[in-house]
């Protein structure tokens, strides 16, 4: 006996699939038609605006005021401000190069080849050093550019990766301390974590940027960017610590007992057994936390940094391009989307890889 493809009760092909997935019942058909029409209307509108009616190159100044479509000329004209913020015009090649360095570091640290206790820290220390040297300059033919003038994409990427790289070890430390057998340590770290989580990020960043200089001795202050990054990292760590702790709690008690019974030392139990399983178990939440952090970098605007979002606002802040705010925001959204989408796809890839069993 064989199942033939021409079986009339079980047809295959495009039309059949369409019927099965979109027109199986009368209600399905109505829903499909209504939403189908909405989608087509929306996509056509976007295509009209963004491509067909759009102006890519400006021939005269008034053109954008009358046309119905997008005026992408704003990106050409203000793109440098958006991407580099207040960074000196002549030195913007350094900022571009620094962006590539930090992106390369991010991408490399996503490659399993670099996941070792020696390679990963070496990679990030190297990446940050080159980034800061390039951005700051002050040697050879590169004039000094202080961190107050850093801006745009380079600053956003720097804040995100520094927060992640400082915050992650801190989160592990917080999580371990909260699980400590010593009640004093467990309780006090529990208190710290809950305290930090109960404050809005903005409050914490304000305290770091404005209040710390008033109360801390000069030697301990560092510069403003450093203080803000460290404060942001503590905020990140408080949330991530709870994710890691949940991950450790979800590994069975048997894992810990087995390691202890085998005579493995505590650090090995944590580093070799508990943490890898904790990160595996909580990968979706960890990626989620990274995505949130990437988008929240825009909050540093309020303590006086010109990261990507603030630079975008500055680009439309002058009267000249004031009407093109939609184009600028779409452009910004697209940049954020590239990074966040990349992060999500990477998370999905990691999950598949781990399902297959690799450490």
């Amino acid at each position, binding site marked *: 006996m064989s199942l033939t493809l021409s079986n009339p009760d079980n047809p295959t092909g495009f039309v059949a699939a369409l019927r099965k997935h979109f027109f199986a019942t009368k209600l399905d058909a109505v829903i499909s038609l209504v939403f189908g029409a909405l989608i087509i209307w929306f996509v056509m509108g976007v295509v009209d605006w963004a491509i067909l009616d759009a102006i890519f190159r400006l021939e005269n100044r008034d053109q954008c005021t009358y046309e119905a479509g997008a005026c992408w000329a704003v990106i050409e004209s203000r793109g440098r401000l958006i991407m580099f913020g207040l960074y000196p015009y002549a030195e913007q090649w350094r900022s571009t190069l620094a962006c590539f360095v930090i992106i390369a570091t991010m991408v490399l640290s996503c490659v399993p080849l670099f996941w070792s206790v020696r390679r990963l820290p070496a990679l990030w220390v190297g990446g940050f050093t080159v980034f800061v040297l390039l951005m700051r300059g002050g040697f050879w033919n590169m004039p000094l550019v202080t961190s107050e003038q850093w801006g745009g994409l380079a600053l956003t990427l720097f804040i995100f990766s520094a927060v992640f790289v400082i915050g992650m070890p801190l989160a592990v430390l917080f999580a371990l301390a909260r699980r400590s057998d010593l009640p004093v340590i467990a309780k006090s770290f529990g208190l710290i974590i809950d305290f930090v989580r109960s404050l809005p990020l903005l409050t914490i960043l304000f305290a770091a940027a404005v209040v710390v200089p008033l109360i801390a001795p000069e030697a301990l202050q560092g510069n403003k960017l450093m203080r803000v990054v460290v404060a942001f990292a503590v905020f990140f760590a408080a949330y991530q610590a709870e994710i890691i702790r949940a991950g450790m709690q979800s590994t*069975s008690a048997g894992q810990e007992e*087995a*390691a202890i*019974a*085998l005579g493995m*030392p505590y650090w090995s139990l944590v580093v070799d057994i508990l943490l890898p399983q904790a990160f595996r178990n909580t990968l979706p939440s960890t990626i989620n936390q990274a995505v949130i952090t990437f988008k929240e970098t825009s909050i540093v605007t309020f303590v006086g940094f010109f990261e990507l979002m603030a630079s975008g606002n500055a680009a439309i802040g002058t009267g000249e391009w004031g009407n093109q705010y939609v184009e600028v925001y779409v452009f910004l959204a697209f940049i954020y989307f590239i990074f966040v989408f990349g992060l999500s796809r990477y998370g999905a890839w990691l999950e598949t890889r781990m399902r297959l*069993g690799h450490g």
Partner: protein
Amino acid sequence: MADPAIHIQSVDKYYGDYHALRDVSLDVPDGQTLVICGPSGSGKSTLIRCINGLETYASGSVEVLGLAVGDDRHLCNLVRKQVGMVFQHFNLFPHLTILENCVLPQIRAIGKDRTAATEEARTQLARMQVDIHAEKYPDQLSGGQQQRVALARALCLKPKIMLFDEPTSALDPEMISEVLDVMQALAREDMTIICVTHEMGFARAVADRVILMAEGRIVEEGTAEQMFTAPTHQITRDFMKAVQR
């Protein structure tokens, strides 16, 4: 007579108000195979977990190979390196391959180098007849295979004493014998073995001594044969009848 491998003297243990072990004393001579049986909740597992310091106890003393197992973490760790343990639920590390499960503890616990540890791991895996699975992950193996890996992992550390905590109770019936077979082979060597189990066939085949626990006490002890043919306590008679069914 030489000192016993394990010397347990008047141990009491509480879980909150629950009196889990009541004045338990037990000597296990070097090389003996001891089976501990008894109804659930009788304190069997708690007792053997006191031997490698997985449980603390309220009073009394536990000495293993002349080392006191108690509050001293350092001594506990010395003991653990000479006492292997196999658990009911295998407790293999799921994120590591079978081979790495056996290699890593050797490196971390006794500081062996990777080459020597790998060689030892392959030897023990072969002995347990699971060497062909070395590159797989635990969840790709059957329960019986996983338990034999767990045994190989413990043997890699060359323990003088092996503890088995209900090693076959989580297994499907058809896999029990493959685990019992390798345990019997081990028992015929001169290793000191304490096994908590209800497998009376295993007890009859290799146990030098069987003890029965109930309500935190050692109720009866003797050879497996004596337990079946001439039990002195009603509890023993009931239990033997139950496990034979």
